[in-house]
């Protein structure tokens, strides 16, 4: 019985392990009630765990550029949604939808990115 309970616990833990991929923290600093759109040039794309990062150079109305750091899910999670190391390249002009940081810093949680070829990659399965 005890062994059975342990096995169930393991099963549950593995289920959580799988379904919470990319959620090692609470995303509390991001205002998930707001979604904003920015466009810019990719400085760096890292498809890594626990979280990927997209660094974007974004120009304001006066042409002054600022660097934005956009957090993604983990590499394993994103690969299931169509992302790969070659999805985004340095120098790509992209448009990003994001949940902004609560304190107004230059960053946010990426919702989706529209690539130069029009392909949209998100952090959920297409259509979800």
């Amino acid at each position, binding site marked *: 019985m005890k*062994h*059975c309970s*342990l*096995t*169930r*616990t*393991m*099963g549950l*833990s*593995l*289920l*959580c*392990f*799988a379904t*919470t*991929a990319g959620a*090692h*923290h*609470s995303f*509390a*600093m991001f205002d998930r009630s707001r979604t904003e759109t920015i466009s810019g040039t990719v400085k*760096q794309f*890292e498809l*890594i*765990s*626990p*979280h990927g*990062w997209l*660094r974007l150079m974004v120009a304001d109305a006066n042409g002054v550029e*600022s*660097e*934005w*750091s956009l*957090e993604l899910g*983990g*590499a*394993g999670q994103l690969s299931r949604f169509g992302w790969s190391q070659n999805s985004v390249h340095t120098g790509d002009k992209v448009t990003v939808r994001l949940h902004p*940081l*609560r*304190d*107004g*810093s*230059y*960053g946010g949680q990426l919702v989706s990115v529209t690539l130069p070829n029009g392909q949209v990659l998100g952090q959920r399965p297409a259509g979800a």
Partner: protein
Amino acid sequence: MKGFSVIVIAALVTPVAALAADWTVYSYPEAGFSIQFPASPTVEKSTIRTSAGVSLPKTRYVVRQDRIVYQLDVVDYSSTDADATNTISETEKSFGAAGKVTVAIDARVNRSFGRELSVNGNDASRSAVAIFFVNKHLFTLVGQALAPNAIEKSGDAIRFQESLQFTGANGGFGGFGGFGGPGGGRFRGGNPQSFAACQGKSIGEKVQLNGPEGPVSATCTLFARPDAPPPAPAP
């Protein structure tokens, strides 16, 4: 932090590094956490004296770069009866003296709960702060973008804030049969077996772990992740 005096004893520790690019994951299994820095951190050992007069060991992991400082302090409260709520609260208050706290919010890393702050410093800096108390250790993380134009580096400060993970007994996945540690257990981040299995291996490489049901095939990410859940329990 106000009320604390610092006596530097100093030491350098070589971290276990993984992953490339600018930012690198530094794993400290003995301290129960991993974190990302954009350069190899200096590790400084010291002690702090609390307002109650108790001397406690502190380890600081720090990278100082032009216009930004990445710093994690880990204070060992295991010799005290300190509790998480009061210790986190006291630490949070100390940041109020350094500037205006613009965001203060409950936060979670793995299964441990703490606080995250944004502080606009009196010196025109901007700090992203995370405070956690796990397994009788206070973790105070500060990514501080410095003036002038501190906002230009604010994205990096946030990235640092978001990179902290608790591992092993501090709340790791707990491995096979050890789910849940003093830090509350966690789903991911790697237990000692997972770290050991992937030592010196590349991301994507296959390894084998020992589970309660026998060998389990796994793939190295930052740590070994089982490829399939264990068999369903017998009815």
